[in-house]
């Protein structure tokens, strides 16, 4: 469709080698088929270029020109704990996309959740790979999905039994490790009727590693269920992360999504939620902090295909140095989705004159009895606020930090799970200190 970068691009060599990788772990031919199909689809779509509407602000040229290779090892003695969310919870660890049982700990998980991987998946789980998605596809297709398929390294199947309710979150930790390695993983989640669970993802790297990672989640939330889905994207500052979460939500279910993006040279978190029945509450929120020359893209699509549901979307970003932030949000309301209540807000704070924000909050509405609104603001810290704090004796540096913390705090408060809200709040506060306010350049 659009190939400003020919198939000769170095990254394509990697795709060819990954998709052609012979069947491993005794999985048979079907995995090779998925990879080949993904590769063909990706080549058909071509590398997304800024000429495509949904990739207008994120350019993958540099990525396409970088050579990656298949990870040689998944051996890692211990987790880079300082890079992952400090939470005491059952965890599954993926190293370079592959499940690592030695580092995982599921002893406290409880009997209502079943987790499988490539090695022990069942036939019907295998069939999930072929499921057609009925949601609206962007004109440009979903290149992240195709790419993810083409180089697929591992998959997780998380099945939450109907009625299972747990306060203990499940932490999925994905670690990139190596020099110019590329990998991808898939996470399938099925939240049974009236279940209640919180999932937490950390995407990070071992110090000094440079990698390309891709993660695609397919999430199915059954009637009356409540799924919290929280993500901390903290990849190493030379790495690239492309993620896509596709969710289908049934009647009276609640989906609470939050992405905190702080890592990687380039990251894109795409969240696509389909509301299929009435009574749904769908929250897609996020915070991002960009420094140095990071590029952080949050793209969301919330599709109301049934009446009487509610969606809420709040994103806030802080951009310093040469960082660039992208927010693209769209609420789509089908003609039958009467009484939809949609809200979308994007705010960005620019802390440097080299920082940049591109924001596109979009509404596409075909039902007349709806309440949809959106807003966006871009600016810097209010002089007036700074002065007020200073007038109370707070030094300029601390005043700025407090204000920025408060600014991000507002969106972290959107997180419905208290434990995770508090944890991420602490994480954000520490990060601000580390990345913005206690640096050697004395900013």
């Amino acid at each position, binding site marked *: 469709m659009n190939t400003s970068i020919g198939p000769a691009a170095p990254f394509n060599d990697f795709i060819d080698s990954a998709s052609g990788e012979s069947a491993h772990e005794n999985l048979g031919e079907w995995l090779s088929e998925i990879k080949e199909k993904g590769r063909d689809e990706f080549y058909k779509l071509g590398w997304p270029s800024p000429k495509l*509407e949904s990739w207008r602000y994120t350019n993958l040229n540099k990525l396409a020109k970088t050579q990656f290779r298949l990870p040689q090892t998944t051996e890692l003695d211990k987790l880079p704990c300082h890079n992952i969310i400090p939470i005491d919870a059952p965890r599954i660890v993926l190293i370079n996309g592959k499940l690592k049982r030695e580092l995982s700990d599921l002893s406290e998980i409880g009997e209502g959740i079943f987790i499988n991987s490539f090695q022990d998946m069942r036939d019907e789980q295998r069939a999930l790979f072929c499921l057609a998605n009925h949601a609206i596809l962007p004109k440009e297709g979903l290149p992240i999905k195709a790419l993810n398929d083409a180089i697929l390294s591992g998959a997780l199947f998380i099945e939450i039994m109907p009625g299972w309710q747990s306060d203990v979150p499940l932490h999925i930790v994905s670690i990139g490790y190596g020099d110019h390695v590329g990998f991808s993983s898939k996470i399938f989640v099925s939240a049974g009727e009236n279940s209640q669970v919180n999932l937490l993802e950390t995407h990070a790297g071992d110090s000094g590693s440079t990698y390309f990672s891709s993660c695609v989640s397919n999430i199915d939330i059954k009637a009356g269920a409540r799924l919290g889905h929280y993500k901390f994207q903290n990849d190493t500052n030379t790495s690239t992360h492309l993620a896509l979460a596709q969710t289908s939500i049934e009647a009276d279910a609640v989906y609470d999504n939050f992405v905190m993006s702080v890592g990687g040279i380039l990251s894109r978190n795409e969240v696509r939620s389909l509301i299929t029945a009435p009574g749904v509450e769908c929250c897609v929120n996020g915070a991002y902090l960009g420094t140095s020359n990071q590029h952080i893209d949050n793209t969301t699509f919330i599709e109301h295909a049934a009446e009487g549901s509610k969606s809420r979307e709040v994103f806030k970003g802080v951009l310093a140095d040469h960082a660039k932030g992208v927010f693209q949000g769209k609420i789509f309301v089908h003609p039958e989705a009467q009484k939809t209540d949609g809200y979308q807000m994007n705010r960005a704070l620019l802390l440097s*004159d080299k920082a940049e924000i*591109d*924001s*596109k909050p979009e*509404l596409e*509405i075909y039902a*007349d009895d*709806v309440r949809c609104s959106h807003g*966006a603001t871009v600016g810097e810290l209010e002089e007036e606020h700074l002065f007020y704090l200073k007038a109370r004796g707070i030094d300029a540096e601390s005043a700025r930090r407090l204000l920025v913390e408060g600014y991000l705090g507002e969106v972290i408060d959107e997180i419905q799970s208290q434990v995770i809200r508090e944890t991420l709040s602490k994480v954000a506060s520490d990060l601000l200190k580390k990345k913005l306010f206690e640096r050697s350049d004395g900013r």
Partner: protein
Amino acid sequence: MSIDANTADRVKELEVDKYKYGFVTDIEMETAPKGLNEDIIRFISAKKEEPDWLLEWRLKAYRHWLTMDEPDWAKVGYDKIDYQDLHYYAAPKNIDRPKSLDEVDPELLNTYEKLGIPLKEQELLSGVVAVDAVFDSVSVATTYKAKLTEMGVIFCSISEAVREYPELVKKYIGSVVPYSDNYFATLNSAVFTDGSFVYVPKGLRCPMELSTYFRINAENTGQFERTLIIADDGAYVSYLEGCTAPQRDENQLHAAVVELVTLDNAEIKYSTVQNWYPGDENGKGGIYNFVTKRGACRGENSKISWTQVETGSAVTWKYPSCILQGDNSIGEFYSVAITNNAQQADTGTKMIHLGKNTRSTVISKGISAGRADNTYRGLVKILPRAEGARNFTQCDSLLIGNKCGAHTVPYIESRNPSARVEHEATTSKISEDQMFYCMQRGLSSEAAVSLIVNGFCKEVMKELPMEFAVEAQKLIGISLEGSVG
């Protein structure tokens, strides 16, 4: 007379037929053969007795156009246009250059009379509006010329300006919308036929509203007018533009270009009431309105303000924009776009902030009824030098019925931390409560819709010059007829 005071008149007007401008004037025409090629462009240029540089510019545009693809990113769908099946020049015979109004064909004067635009000076609204009347490819009359010339204001057709003021035209044409700008603007650059030219000299506040009235009459003819307005240092002008076309079953193409330039401390206020034939209830016929309008605030403290009421056309594709180059310059965009039946509109603005402390305001009101689609598409771009820039955007959509669509697509790009950009948008419908309340007080359902919609649009309507506000209010009522069951 305030806007409010006229609502009763408007309601009366609701009784009038749906598109009262749909008649055809029977007049002898001179038409270029169908099709587009370099010979046709040479023919147009020769017809207008143009200098070589302009012909060359047209040909350059045409050659560039051949390399371009028709844009498809807007949220509109229409049958492919056969650019070889159009006439690119149509003019009433023997009116090439009437010296005064007395020489204009009475049939033409009659046409404008019927459109409510009398071209006799004494009948014009107490001498406050000067009119340039464009009929298909040519300007047929310009009123109050003598009076304006006396003050140093140049107001004439662009063809005349090319002949009389070639230096000015050469300096500014294509300087805001370059010939290579976009598919339709490039086509226009190659084949534009007429349009208005305004130059307001230094320090003058033009005391009259200047107005152009565009009329498409001929069949299978594209209208490609080009308007160029320059306000020199400290000058001010308010310019009005109105458009109508006969009711025809075929779609007709209108691809205009408007360029505005304000120098230091100058201001241009540009108002449009667009009422091209929208096609019938089933979407048959109607005008394709693909227009490029852009203003450059070149000077410090200068200001450009666009106000538009878009009720007509089958398809509208239009983004009047401001390039805010001068420090402290101001751009404004006020828009009401109404789509009913099968109409489609994709309209909005671009505010490009280059200079320091530049400010822009965007107020857009989209009303969608029937099976229509209405899209606001707008760009606010803050460049690194635009220290202290401010933008406020508000777009509200109103849906009437559940077969139509309302869409908001704002693009916000900021590269300066001291800039402040705010965007707000809402979507709503006319509530049953409001309808019942109005009807309980005796208003018919159509009058209630018209009243509520006019209230919804008020922030925009108040920006229109008085003469236009009255007409625009009536139009809102008429274009929504039949939208409530």
